[in-house]
């Protein structure tokens, strides 16, 4: 059974998604069903990480006599659909499943009043399938297929509240942007397939010759994934989507965005890591995009009045830290001394920031969702004095805001600290931008806190009270994770982050199909 774990990871949420519409008449059961399925996937992803730590890269071949049989008899190249799971794939799988569970739990109360919830939960589970497929696959075409699944499910969820014009508009925008990016990915995959007659990532990375055509494919993949992860100046779709999607979907939509970031890292490190001449150039492109992303994101957040839009711009800004951290590592990948001195730390910071950001940004977006649930508005100018009415939400918001601003001892500080100290070694200006961004982040969250929670209680919110328990539980779990990851960063780094960093750096390990070929 354990050898089929990679396939089960996909099969269970897929089964859950197909069953969910059967609960059309009992939508509460659909919600419980989604919570159950996502909880099971959390357990499976932890087991997957354990297996990866125990046995190294896991290879799973669909349709083979044995799931580990990479090459059919008589063949010299892999032709089957393969999942190839290393440290970073397992790391992303844990992020995806955890956030799907939290999102489903929060949604139980948050969207209770909506109709069509059986479709909502089916789409939530499909989105999980899409993300898991993207991060587990070892095949370029499957990456495209799962990217499409995640894009379509995501856009349907963004436009879920279709009685709101803005939601439909955001959903269509997300769909088109996703489709354009996916088509370009398909085009790049076609180029590589035409050249090497194979779609297996490990195989292509072993045989790639880095000619002009390859570099065009790389450019297309790089730009498409950069757009899908919300890098400036291709970030415009992010505020639209994150603002309109129900708050329970925000966590998994965030992970979906970072699955594209994962794909960007995977392509840059695994497929193209051996282009020694221009790899530093690629790293610099990533780092500069990171700095632009963090700075423009945060300055745009500072002037927003819609609480979810403000937080969406912060999501863009925080992606910049991840791009910067991993970009610094990529820049010095072929310089063993610099890689050992600061490159690996920078990458650890960037990857640690992925999970940290997923946790605290989900928490903050859920707090924003709670504000909307209670007040019926997202406009900060119309809020005030809610701290006494919603004490737990307020506390959770404070934890999330402190974490995103990089205040110790919360989790955001731990990863940002690694990024500051290591990016400084490549170029001090990079660290300066990162720190200024953190200060501006804190400033804009002070604005949210002051206008929504502080101040005298407003008459119109006299009857306001704390949000229902499932929403509280979801927020409290995330707040606790913010504190735990901040107090024990070394544990997370050792168990989750450094295996992920090593997986990216040690290309040869990935190329050997887990030691089978």
């Amino acid at each position, binding site marked *: 059974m354990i050898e089929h774990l990679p396939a089960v990871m996909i099969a269970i949420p897929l089964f859950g998604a197909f069953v969910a519409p059967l609960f059309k008449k009992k939508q509460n059961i659909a919600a419980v069903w989604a919570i159950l399925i996502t909880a099971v996937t959390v357990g499976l992803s932890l087991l997957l990480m354990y297996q990866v730590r125990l046995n190294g890269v896991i290879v799973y071949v669909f349709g083979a006599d044995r799931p580990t049989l990479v090459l059919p008899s008589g063949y010299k190249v892999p032709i089957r659909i393969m999942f190839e799971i290393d440290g970073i794939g397992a790391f992303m799988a844990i992020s995806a499943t955890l956030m799907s569970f939290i999102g489903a739990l929060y949604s139980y109360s948050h969207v209770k009043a909506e109709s069509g919830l059986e479709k909502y939960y089916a789409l939530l589970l499909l989105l999980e399938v899409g993300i898991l497929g993207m991060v587990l696959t070892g095949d370029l075409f499957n990456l495209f297929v799962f990217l499409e699944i995640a894009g379509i499910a995501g856009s349907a969820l963004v436009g879920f509240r279709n009685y709101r014009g803005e939601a439909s508009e955001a959903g269509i925008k997300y769909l088109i*942007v996703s489709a*354009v*990016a996916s088509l*370009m990915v398909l085009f790049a995959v076609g180029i590589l397939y035409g050249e090497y007659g194979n779609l297996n990532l490990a195989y292509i990375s072993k045989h790639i010759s880095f*000619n*002009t055509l*390859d*570099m*065009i494919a*790389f*450019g*297309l993949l*790089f*730009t498409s994934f*950069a757009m899908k992860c919300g890098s400036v*100046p*291709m970030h*415009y*779709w992010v505020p*639209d989507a994150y603002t309109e999607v129900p708050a329970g979907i925000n966590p998994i939509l965030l992970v979906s965005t970072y699955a594209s970031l994962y794909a960007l890292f995977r392509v840059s490190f695994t497929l193209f890591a051996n*282009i020694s*001449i*221009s790899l530093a*150039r*690629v790293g610099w*492109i990533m780092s500069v995009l990171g700095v632009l992303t963090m700075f*423009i994101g945060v*300055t*745009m957040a*500072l*002037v927003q*009045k819609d609480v979810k839009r403000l937080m969406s711009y912060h999501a863009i800004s925080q992606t910049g830290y991840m791009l910067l951290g991993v970009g610094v590592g990529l820049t010095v990948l072929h310089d063993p001394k610099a890689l050992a*001195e600061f490159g690996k*730390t920078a990458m650890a910071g960037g990857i640690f920031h992925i999970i940290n950001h997923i946790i605290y940004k989900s928490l903050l977006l859920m707090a924003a969702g709670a504000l909307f649930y209670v007040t019926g508005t997202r406009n*900060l100018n119309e*809020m*005030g004095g809610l701290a006494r009415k919603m004490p737990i939400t307020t506390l959770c918001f404070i934890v999330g805001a402190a974490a995103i601003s990089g205040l*110790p*001892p919360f989790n955001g500080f*731990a990863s940002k*600290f*690694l990024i500051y*100290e*290591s990016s*400084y*070694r490549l170029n001090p200006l990079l660290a300066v931008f990162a720190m200024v961004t953190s200060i501006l982040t804190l400033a804009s969250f*002070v*604005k*949210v806190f*002051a*206008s*929504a929670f502080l101040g*005298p209680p407003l008459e119109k919110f006299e009857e306001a009270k704390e949000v229902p328990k499932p929403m509280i539980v979801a927020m409290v779990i995330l707040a606790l994770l913010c504190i735990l990851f*901040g*107090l*024990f*960063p*070394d*544990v997370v*780094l050792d168990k989750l982050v450094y295996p992920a960093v090593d997986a990216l750096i040690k290309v040869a390990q990935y190329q050997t199909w887990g030691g089978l070929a």
Partner: protein
Amino acid sequence: MIPRLVTGAGYWSPLLWLAFLILFTLIGYLIYSRGNPRYRKDTEQVKPYLSGNVEPSKEKIQVKAGDIYWGLVEALKDYYNVLQAIHTGDLRDYILWYLGVGTIILFLLVGGA
């Protein structure tokens, strides 16, 4: 073993930091608890002095989100004018930015191949 975050340039110990934070909070509380003993809550002594004017209702003097950082945004008006002008919300512009950035990246990559 105290958890440490090793950065290459030094280390950070969150639990040690937390211990100091608790210690300083206790010291702060000790100083606070020895404050003015004549202070009485909900009496005339805590009311603001407004040169004899009537104190407006709290709801009227609430600082709105748009007012916070007004000065900063005003000082950076030129920067924000440019930034807000490019955030058009028009899907065609989204795609054009993608194509533009894609062209630059392709140029940088193919030029270096």
